[in-house]
């Protein structure tokens, strides 16, 4: 990278102009963390002013028994493993009964494993069950990886699967399973699940059907910096085409208890750099989420100064990332999230899945 290239990239970032891949590489190499933060914050303020969003949600992870055996995952196990579990109708009913008591619950987030014997009807019935118990709550469920799995199990095209789920009450898809959209990387970290093309095709189909989705990156494992940045550009291209992404989430890889446990968790420097770089590159995505469960609360709060405008939610009980050694609590309160946002000099805004403010939360 020449000094000239770095200078140009910095000028573009400062002006909030669209970055090229070369610009992104130059900024990455330049490594001026606080400069990136300042530019990212400016761009964030253009998009959402001083607002920082959070929601009151509950996570449901239906099962951890999974056929994909991804080396990057600490959550999944094989059938017969004593850690294995599957939630049946009555287990889900219990969770929903608790959820009904939560004031202003906005969203149920359902992400699970690819169970070897549970058929598509099982998952479909869960959506119906949630919808029946909580008719006003948004159901954000199933990553493209799961949707591709449903399609393969049933022989039905992805479009039909999504239409059936939509009909049953699903309103958006979470952003997980994207990892790094590069098949060299996927072959090593998650060889058995949806390929790059399948992930992209599923997302585009969802957007065509009017199902909004999130998107994500899982960084800090075996990917190169070029692959990491290219992933962000892939997401930007999809968004140019469809406009269906609501929020982007950067997941740092947590190596503990995974088959890649010889790797080290990247440092806080890299986390903040990723938040700022993502905000700058993804100029067409409205929201960048600092997912406190993954980052820890202090880093998520700090990320609000690096371009993030969403802390995710109260969550209830999170299982997937805690299996990988996350040391954060499994839930938090509305008051705590609001205090974190206020301390950062921002305005806390409770939102629904679609980023509509919920007024009575004030």
């Amino acid at each position, binding site marked *: 990278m020449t000094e000239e290239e770095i200078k140009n990239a910095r000028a573009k970032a400062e002006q909030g102009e669209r970055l090229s891949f070369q610009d992104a590489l130059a900024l990455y190499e330049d490594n001026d963390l*606080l400069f990136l933060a300042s530019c990212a914050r400016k761009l964030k303020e253009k998009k959402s002013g001083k607002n920082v969003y959070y929601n009151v949600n509950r996570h449901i992870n239906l099962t951890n028994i999974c056929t994909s055996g991804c080396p990057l995952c600490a959550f999944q196990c094989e059938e017969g493993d004593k850690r294995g579990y599957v939630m049946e109708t009555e287990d889900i009913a219990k969770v929903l009964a608790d959820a009904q008591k939560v004031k202003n619950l906005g969203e149920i987030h359902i992400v699970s494993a690819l169970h070897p014997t549970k058929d598509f009807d099982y998952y479909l019935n869960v959506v119906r069950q949630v919808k029946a118990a909580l008719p006003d709550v948004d159901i954000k469920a199933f990553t493209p990886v799961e949707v591709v799995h449903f399609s393969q199990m049933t022989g039905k095209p992805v479009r039909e699967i999504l239409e059936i789920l939509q009909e049953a009450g699903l309103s958006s898809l979470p952003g997980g399973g994207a990892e790094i959209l590069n098949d060299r990387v996927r072959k090593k970290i998650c060889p058995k699940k949806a390929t790059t093309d399948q992930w992209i095709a599923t997302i585009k189909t969802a957007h065509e059907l009017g199902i909004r989705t999130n998107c994500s990156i899982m960084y800090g494992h075996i990917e190169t910096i070029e692959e990491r940045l290219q992933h962000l550009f892939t997401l930007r291209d999809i968004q140019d085409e469809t406009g269906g992404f609501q929020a982007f989430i950067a997941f740092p890889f947590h190596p503990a208890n995974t088959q890649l446990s010889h790797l080290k968790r990247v*440092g806080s420097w890299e986390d903040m750099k990723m938040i700022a770089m993502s905000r700058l590159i993804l100029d067409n995505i409205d929201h960048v989420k600092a997912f406190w469960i993954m980052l820890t609360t202090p880093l998520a709060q700090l990320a609000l100064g690096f371009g993030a405008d969403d802390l995710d939610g109260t969550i209830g009980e999170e299982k997937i990332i805690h299996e990988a050694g996350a040391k954060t609590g499994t839930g938090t309160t509305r008051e705590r999230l609001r205090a*974190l946002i206020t*301390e950062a000099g921002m305005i806390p805004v409770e939102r629904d899945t679609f980023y509509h403010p919920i007024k009575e939360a004030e």
Partner: protein
Amino acid sequence: MLATVEYKDIEEKIERGERLSREDGIRLFNCSNIAWLGAMADKVRREKCGDIVYYNVNCHVNLTNICTSHCKFCAFGKDKDSKGAYAFSVEQALAVVWDAKKDPNLAGLHVVSGLHPDWTFEDYLERLQALHDEFPELYLKGFTGVEITHFSKISGLSIQEVLKKLQAAGLKSIAGGGAEILSDRIRGELCPKKATAEEWLEVARTAHKLGIKTNASMLYGHIETLEERVDHLIKLRDLQDETGGFQTFICFPFLPKNTELGQSIKQTSMWDDLRTMAISRLMLDNFKNIKAYWVMLTIPVAQVALSFGANDIDGTIHKETILHDAGATSPTSLSEDHIIKIIRDAGRIPAACDCNFNILRRFD
């Protein structure tokens, strides 16, 4: 660069290298644009000390945790008959260092202890001398302004005489602790039995006159106001104008766990830690070094702090106890390789130094 209109005048002052006033400092504490604060501090740091980040391969030796001062923010100090109370003999102190000597790169010791009710100044001096005699190759940094004031009181010697004796026993520089907040309102509430603000400053002043370098610090995040933080920084800056003897400034966030005060006070946020770091760099325009003490800040905060004005990350420590008694969640030691990686990942140049910031090895 990217200041909001509101802070344009401060940004211009910083760019001209002009000194910030008390009012400027207070305004900075009310600024929520943390990236801008960090960028300003980072710019000043880059101009003043370049890209080197100092660390040291050291071992903490806490001679005793028995302490008469009962500070409300402390979880380390104990009464003589309390469970877990200890007081090292000469041999025990040497044994700690022999253990740390397993690291061939060990370069120095950091000796800080409680104010033991029965020990005389000679008891402390004897242990220091023994450490120096046994390990002449290790630099000795130790004793805060609080301990030195205590030695003067129990021995009847002047501060200057105490310092000369410590120097003769091998002491090379003085630790930065015990400053807390240099305000007698705060000290009256939290640590009435130990050195006053003026006494602490007088030890530093006297040491500087004798050519002994010292460090400075601030314990924040308890009962002090933001104005009192700024006033504290200005007191240190004034003395530095007078003597030039401070080497590094260390921000200590108060760790509430297991302390008397902790029942009513919550731990500071990373946000507060980083802005305090940045504002310290900006206010302390006559200090060369600002330390991100990883034990208190935790490693993630310390690493990011390197872009909020810090150019020093402290050391390997061997086994930290004072802050771990207060619930510090960081490890009790770090390997040198780990420290080097933390610094490198932040795009900076690691350099191992002695207690007077002489570079021993650097890793370009």
